[in-house]
């Protein structure tokens, strides 16, 4: 509770500072020459909130938000599933991983955001070019974590399961997958953020819907308040998605010891 109060206090202080520094005529200028310059470059918190409230009251935002969230969710899910599958495959097959190694390294070190224009050409300006960008970003994060997770499975655990009569498939299901899960969830938190990056950057480069599109339009008319409003809405929804991943993680990972756990017997 105390923690939550402190967190909210910091948020309040930041907004107050923002207001103080940008409100025209409130404090003497120390950097800009004119009173309204700070507000022009950094927006004003009360106006930003006004934009957000207007969006939600008029319902204008919902269509855009839906599109962006859909792109994010699709990118996240498809990328994660691919990452999990390919990660398992390469971690369990020595030959395949040796053959694919240079390609994986190459694709990973490539700045994949530059693929966005190509995806726009391939998949059009609809949601799929954004999903594709999200997938390329999410895939590698999940892939590397799964790969590492499977590699780190204790050999004793595998030997024990084999002695207890586990087949290859049973080994995969009851040893490799659960063992890799803690790594997977660590990566999913990053992956949510990257799926958002994919969606918004994709929209930014060419689209007719989505929050990224709203931001792009506002920037075109130097409407900084709307730009900030878009950023804030995206941040809140990224936090919500991350929280959802956390909730699922908590459900599935009850077996993990916690630091405060002292009830050994």
């Amino acid at each position, binding site marked *: 509770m105390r923690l939550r109060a402190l967190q909210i206090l910091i948020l309040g202080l930041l907004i107050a500072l923002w207001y103080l520094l940008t409100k025209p005529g409130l404090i003497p200028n120390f950097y800009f020459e004119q009173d309204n310059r700070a507000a022009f470059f950094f927006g004003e918190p009360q106006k930003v909130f006004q934009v957000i409230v207007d969006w939600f009251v008029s319902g204008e935002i919902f269509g855009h938000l839906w599109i962006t969230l859909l792109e994010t969710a699709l990118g996240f899910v498809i990328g994660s599933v691919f990452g999990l599958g390919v990660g398992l495959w390469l971690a369990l097959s020595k030959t395949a991983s040796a053959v694919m190694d240079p390609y994986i390294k190459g694709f990973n070190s490539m700045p994949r955001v530059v693929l966005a224009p190509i995806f726009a050409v391939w998949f059009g300006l609809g949601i799929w070019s954004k999903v594709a960008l999200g997938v390329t970003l999410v895939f590698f994060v999940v892939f590397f974590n799964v790969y590492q997770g499977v590699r780190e499975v204790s050999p004793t655990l595998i*030997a024990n399961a084999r002695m207890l*009569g586990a087949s290859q498939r049973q080994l995969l299901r009851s040893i490799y997958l659960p063992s890799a899960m803690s790594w997977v969830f660590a990566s999913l938190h990053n992956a949510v953020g990257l799926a958002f990056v994919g969606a918004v950057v994709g929209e930014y480069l060419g689209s007719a819907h989505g929050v990224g599109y709203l931001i792009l339009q506002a920037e075109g008319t130097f409407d900084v308040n709307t730009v900030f409003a878009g950023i804030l809405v995206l941040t809140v929804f990224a936090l919500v998605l991350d929280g959802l991943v956390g909730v699922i993680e908590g459900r599935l990972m009850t077996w*993990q010891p916690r630091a405060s756990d002292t009830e050994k017997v």
Partner: protein
Amino acid sequence: MTATTPALALDDITCRFAGRDSGAPYTAVANATLRVGEGEFVSVVGPTGCGKSTLLNVAAGLLAPSSGIVSVFGQRLMPGQGVNRRAGYMFQADALMPWRTGIENVVAGLDFRGVPRGEARQQGEAWLRRVGLAGFGDRYPHQMSGGMRKRLALAQTLIMRPDILLMDEPFSALDVQTRQLMENELLALWAEDRKSVLFITHDLEEAIALSDRVVVLSAGPGTRPIGDFRIDLPRPRDVSEIRMTPAFLTLHREIWSAMKEEVLKAYERQKAA
């Protein structure tokens, strides 16, 4: 040696590992022959790092020997055809699945075998009671002490009713008191149906207190059995009391004199390396 087919026979086993950094290959086990009769409790003792675990992994079918034959009840265990199906293996390190509760760990083998859930659970509960963990089935391994985890591992192995029990220093991580309790429990469980046991340890006292026969291994590399001692102490035994009896001390002195030289050899080799 009994005239009947031994439960487990290792014939002329050699295990050679490729050297690290293109060094010379390392021969862990050389021309080792070892037999475990049906219902016999055999302990293998030897200096540290002499390849005891290698020998056990060969017996389990987890490791294919470079040469030599492993037979289980007269049937040859072919390399590449999976593990020794008639053996249960208790590992030195923790091998419980941390994401499964106690009861789920115990029934893991039955799960793999496809035993219906309800039936597996019933058997699991019974085994938890037998190893003294009744009521702890819904705890995760990390919520248990070292001794409880060992008992859980024992139940996990024994629920499969293996004909041969392979044990790799299973109690070496426990404190002395817990260890003697576990040794007594193991003997009590074993006395119920007298399976064949191959028990690896570096502790000679433990070996004598538990076994029908103690096999002494030479120092590595190229480990092989160099002594075979019959332990004819009366059963049932209490491991903490039997250590005080004159018969035990005589056996201990006899086997130790055979082992001592090898232990010193291993020590010198480790110091030189």
